[in-house]
């Protein structure tokens, strides 16, 4: 096997996938998956609550296991892979990042809404100070023009980010839009450019290829599509596709397939697929982790989860605003009751 890497993949199932399992990961699950991924030669594995460090909350879902325990377990299992964490300023804080770094984390991904990069200055600088490789993560990238995205990416670069990611949190971008955004960043930034996809419109793989074609050298994958909404670019699929293109990920195809089949599939409550709910996320441009919350609210108020998601899209709700789901659901159900009277 050729371990040279033309492209660096970060496996996000143990972070983004936290949404899909309602933040119920156990130490044993994280251990076995991290070990399997490491053995398959995955270079980076992200571990945190789905909403990053400090995300455990009534707003987003309480973690079954303290994420620091999960991080510690993952660090202990890996030989070559580096463990990464996500931090969203406003949710997580610098002391939590310090704690994670102390446990052996090597990379921090600091995330903001695509137009709010300036809240990350302190955290990016602090991550660098802690000696961590640092990524700026611009979420909901479909909500800003390429020009705005570039301006914000430059800010993150100026704070010290080694890599800046275009993050399609809603899985709403189309391939030509990905290409346009990545190419613009590539032209004006010296930092590495990364791309994070969601598969809500079945475009995660295609968008990842478009991003690479335009110059992205960092990509994210979630094994067995274990990520929010319909999941992300399916890691084992990406490894196979890139292999056919003669692009080296350094990841062992058979081993990664086995991790997906033998370790990850059994922990899924339902297979990760594009349901009408996740399709609507991509269609309406709504943050992928809203998916399960919208289903719950829909059941509670006896309305269609799609109408909730469409309404949230109209209101330009951003990532993290899970509280709007219940609020909008209550409002829609009240409105319906009034019409019925």
């Amino acid at each position, binding site marked *: 096997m050729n371990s040279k890497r033309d492209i660096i993949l970060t496996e996000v199932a143990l972070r983004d996938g936290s949404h899909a399992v309602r933040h119920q990961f156990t130490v044993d699950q994280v251990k076995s998956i991290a070990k399997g991924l490491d053995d398959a030669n995955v270079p980076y594995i992200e571990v945190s609550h789905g909403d990053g460090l*400090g995300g455990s*909350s*009534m*707003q987003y879902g309480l973690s079954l296991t303290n994420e620091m325990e999960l991080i510690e377990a993952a660090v202990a299992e890996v030989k070559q892979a580096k463990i990464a964490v996500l931090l969203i*300023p*406003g*949710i997580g*804080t*610098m002391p939590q990042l310090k704690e994670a770094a102390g446990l052996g984390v090597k990379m921090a991904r600091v995330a903001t*809404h695509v*137009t*709010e990069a*300036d*809240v990350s*200055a*302190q955290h990016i600088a602090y991550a660098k100070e802690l000696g961590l490789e640092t990524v700026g993560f611009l979420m909901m990238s479909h909500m800003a023009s390429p020009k705005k995205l570039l301006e914000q990416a430059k800010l993150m670069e100026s704070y010290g980010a080694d890599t800046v990611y275009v993050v399609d949190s809603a899985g709403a971008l189309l391939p030509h839009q990905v290409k346009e955004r990545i190419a613009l960043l590539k032209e004006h930034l010296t930092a590495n450019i990364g791309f994070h996809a969601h598969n809500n419109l079945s475009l995660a793989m295609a968008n990842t290829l478009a991003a690479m074609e335009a110059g992205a050298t960092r990509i994210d994958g979630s094994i067995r599509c274990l990520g929010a909404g319909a999941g992300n670019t399916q890691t084992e699929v990406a490894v196979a596709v890139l292999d056919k293109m003669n692009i080296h990920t350094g990841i062992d195809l058979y081993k990664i397939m086995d991790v997906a089949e033998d370790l990850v599939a059994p922990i899924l409550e339902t297979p990760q697929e594009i349901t009408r709910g996740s399709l609507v996320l991509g269609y309406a441009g709504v943050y992928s982790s809203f998916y399960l919350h919208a289903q719950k609210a829909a059941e509670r108020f006896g309305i269609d989860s799609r109408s909730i998601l469409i309404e949230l899209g109209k*209101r*330009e*709700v*951003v990532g*993290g*605003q899970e*509280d709007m789901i*219940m*609020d909008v659901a*209550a*409002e829609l159900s*009240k409105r319906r009751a009034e019409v019925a009277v």
Partner: protein
Amino acid sequence: MKKVKVAILGSGNIGTDLMLKLSRSPILELTTMIGIDAESDGLKKAAEHGYEVITTGIDGFLERPELADIIFDATSAKAHIYHDEVLRKAGKKVIDMTPAAIGPIVVPPVNLDEHLDADNINLITCGGQATIPIIHAVHQVQAVEYGEIVSTISSKSAGPGTRANIDEFTQTTTRGILEVGGAKRGKAIILLNPAEPPILMRNTIHIQVEEEAKTEEITASIREMEKEVQSYVPGYRLRQEPIFDGKDITVFVEVEGVGDYLPTYSGNLDIMTASSVKMAEEWAKHKVAHIPV
């Protein structure tokens, strides 16, 4: 009753909004606006309104300490440390609107009475002022095991100070949830939303009580608190009835500003300036009541 003289330190958005609010106070007399940038809009407006304008910062004021007995500090946490030190020496009362939180942290309808003798009181954060009253209202009925608040503000109303120190918001607000709200455990989250037109400040308060929530009593207590906050922040309101689910309670609050200097969507800034005026007024009343006749 003779009005108590006050001054504003800091001529940014908060200071200028505060200036307009103070002009309506029946108890406080704004005499002076203190800044360091003579060209700032705030100092220009202060001059137009006929207030004393000091452009040399706190040192300029200390040369003329008779101008005010209560000072509102609307500068920054860093600057406040020095301001606190010198104003204490000068025997002035200080309302700290920065996240420095040197003095006791206060939410007017909850614990202002306990701190009327303090020399320096702190306002926590906008999110704290909007949500801690609700946590306290629940706590009065049933012990609060956990209080979690999520404040969403429009991007336009989040100034550079907030943006550069966002951890201070989450940490100081959490402290307020515990110390003032009464929750055993707490968490605070802040989100910025760039939608146009800008959204009103929204707050969601997730509360967990120790036993099955007493729906009616808690709702009544929350509604009463809503009225109390409305007495000094008119645009403060519940968006809908509290939602109950076993031990969990969710309350949605929005804050519309009065639109003095800052537009009405900036409820987050308005609640800070309105709360600080409320504090200073109570302080002034207390002081007058305690002057030996």
